[in-house]
């Protein structure tokens, strides 16, 4: 088992933890954090493949991770804004109680 396999297994475990959190938690903020964890698992994959790949001097994995982190930050800001806006209507962040699209 080479080092790359270890990193890929860790990334898969991180993804599964994030997926379980996004599926199981009922607090909308924690579901968003589960999605962030899944994005982070993808970032770890990019960096590990860049480090152990055939052409690390091209820096492709690093570039992709930088852009991915940027998109994740924008997503977190807009997602938490949406949660605040929904909370103002429904007075809850519990996903089980958000059953109506009408404000």
């Amino acid at each position: 088992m080479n080092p790359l396999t270890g990193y890929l297994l860790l990334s898969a475990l991180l993804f599964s933890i994030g997926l379980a959190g996004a599926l199981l938690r009922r607090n909308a903020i924690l579901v968003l954090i589960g999605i962030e964890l899944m994005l982070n698992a993808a970032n770890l994959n990019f960096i590990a493949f860049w480090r152990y790949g055939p052409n690390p001097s091209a820096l492709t994995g690093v570039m992709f991770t930088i852009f991915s982190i940027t998109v994740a930050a924008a997503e977190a800001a807009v997602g938490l804004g949406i949660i605040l806006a929904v909370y103002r209507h429904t007075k809850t962040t519990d996903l089980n109680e958000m059953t109506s699209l009408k404000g």
Partner: protein
Amino acid sequence: MTLIFLILAAITIVGTAAAMSFRNPIHCILGLTVGLVGLAMLFLHLGAQFVGFTQIIVYVGAVAILAVFAIMMTQGGRRLTETATKPQITPSLLVGGTVAGAVFAVLGWAMLGRPSTAIHSVQPVVSVNQIGQLLMHNYVLPLEIMAVLLTAALIGAVILAMPQERGKR
């Protein structure tokens, strides 16, 4: 598979698992912070210094704080825990755990099932200078698109979170 990797992987997994299993959302964010710091250390260990420090600045410095603010703004008066506090095996827990476990099993099987190929084990030397050159030459269009995206996200988040009917509240 060095000792450093095992320690950092343990920190990351324990932190993120705590973030997804604690009942108090504030404790979840603390666990998330620990996990993300472990992940940033893994990036540093892999030789990607810029990404590691960006991870710390963006996730630990911004996203975690933003999540704490959102939790405090949405649950100020109430008790900060989820409503049904009894840990019990519900169908949703069973289904969600099964799906996540199946995803991990398939990914692990795909990784361990094939023979390990030769990898390049020379630690690449990457400087911030190189990253800046690439960002300004090869990747200048994605960089500009990112700038537009961040501006749109900033404006959108402010508009979404702004109170609309000021007189009624």
